[in-house]
């Protein structure tokens, strides 16, 4: 039986015990189609009878709203920015992710610690500190990295609306205007993801492909993984 593994530090008060679920993470920059892919993957898994729970940044009951409010103001510093995101994940970890993993769900995370680490580094925070900070998080079973170059990203973001202040790293004075800032900031994030891909064993998929082809690739990898290590209690319906 599997156990939950933690990035670096298991909090001593957390219970030990079997983990029958799986943590599947989908990472990638803004506008790479992550959310749509996660939604379709969830439907596909549910059709097969798997219990699925999804989670994502700023969805915690404790500080989700507070982060959204703080981002409207000007008081966030890179330290408090990173610490607030860590609090958000910690709350979801204890009330949502860990209980779900213990009861055999597939937890589908729309972004995870890698986004928080990349964003922190892009804001000048110390990498070692960031990795230690997020050390309380559960180690994922699968991490997909939907990779999209900055040049492919720009039209997608512009077609779906406009460039957002935080997604452009405007708090960091990265560039002259929002466009230059967006290019520099998203470029820095992609560079971080690319650097992590090898050591963190990301499954890197080309997000500039047709979305249906991309979804097929996701399903194939997830399907193979679940077949090789089937522990899920919510076992597939015959």
């Amino acid at each position, binding site marked *: 039986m599997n156990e939950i593994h933690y990035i*670096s*530090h*298991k*909090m*001593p*008060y957390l219970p030990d015990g079997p983990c029958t679920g799986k943590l599947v993470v989908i990472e990638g920059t803004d506008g790479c189609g992550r959310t749509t892919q996660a939604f379709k993957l969830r439907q596909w898994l549910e059709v097969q009878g798997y219990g699925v729970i999804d989670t994502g940044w700023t969805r915690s*009951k*404790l*500080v989700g709203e*507070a982060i959204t409010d*703080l981002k409207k103001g000007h*008081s966030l*510093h890179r*330290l*408090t920015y990173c*610490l*607030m995101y*860590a*609090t958000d994940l*910690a*709350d979801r*970890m*204890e*009330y949502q992710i860990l209980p779900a993993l213990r009861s055999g769900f597939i937890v589908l995370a729309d972004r995870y610690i890698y986004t928080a680490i990349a964003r922190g580094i892009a804001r000048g925070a*110390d990498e*070692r*500190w960031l990795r*230690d*900070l997020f*050390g*309380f998080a559960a180690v994922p079973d699968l991490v997909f990295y939907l990779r999209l170059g900055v040049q492919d990203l720009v039209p997608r973001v512009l077609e779906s609306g406009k460039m957002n202040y935080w997604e452009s790293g405007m708090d960091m004075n990265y560039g002259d205007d929002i466009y230059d800032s967006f290019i520099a900031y998203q470029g820095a994030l992609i560079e971080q993801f690319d650097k992590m891909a090898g050591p963190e064993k990301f499954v890197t998929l080309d997000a500039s492909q047709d979305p249906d082809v991309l979804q097929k690739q996701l399903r194939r990898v997830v399907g193979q993984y679940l077949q090789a290590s089937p522990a899920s209690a919510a076992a597939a319906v015959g």
Partner: protein
Amino acid sequence: MDGLTQPHHYPGRLIVVEGIDGSGKSTQLQLAMRYLQSRGFSTFFTEWNSADLVKAVTKKGKKKQTLTPLTFSLLHATDFAHRLVYSILPPLKAGMIVLSDRYIYTAFARDVVRGVDRQWARRMYSFAPRPDLALYFKVPIEVSVQRLVAGRAQLKDYEAGMDLHLASDKVSSFKIFQARILKEYQEIAQEYGLSEIDASQSIGHQQQIVRGLIDQMLESYQPAEQETMA
């Protein structure tokens, strides 16, 4: 980030006091501030838990009792980081003497007693500058309880560690909780070289020791030159 283990390079000085509730540390810091001001130094006072960045969140979490040891710890760190950036670093960079009533060692002690990993907590706070003088007021638990009961009407739930379910009444819970914190402080004092002061002595006697340590620490200090109007 090795802030905690290396001396900082700011022109100002950072003095912090630590100790369990009722150890008399706030009184001593107050007197030290008067002393520094009387010597003509520019001082800045700050205390643990005074930032407002996440005050509403912490309050909500405490009320609904949804805070876990981990989120409790993270929220306090967020609050401290905010205070560091906006209240502690500016006076330090301006060459002032910053006096802090409690510092990160309070978090180390409380968080670990609540069940957070010891090393994780230390690393999280590694962005904090090392104090130039850290005073630890050591007092037996009985003295602390006596002082608190005499001076305060009601203990608050989290102060008494009621979330740890150590005892059903606040005073008993407080005693067990503070005893554990005291034990943690002892380790911290050694690890980080805090200056230990016997807080069961008279106020005046303790202050004499405090001022002696301050004088020693200030030997290398050069106050920022004030522009004088002719």
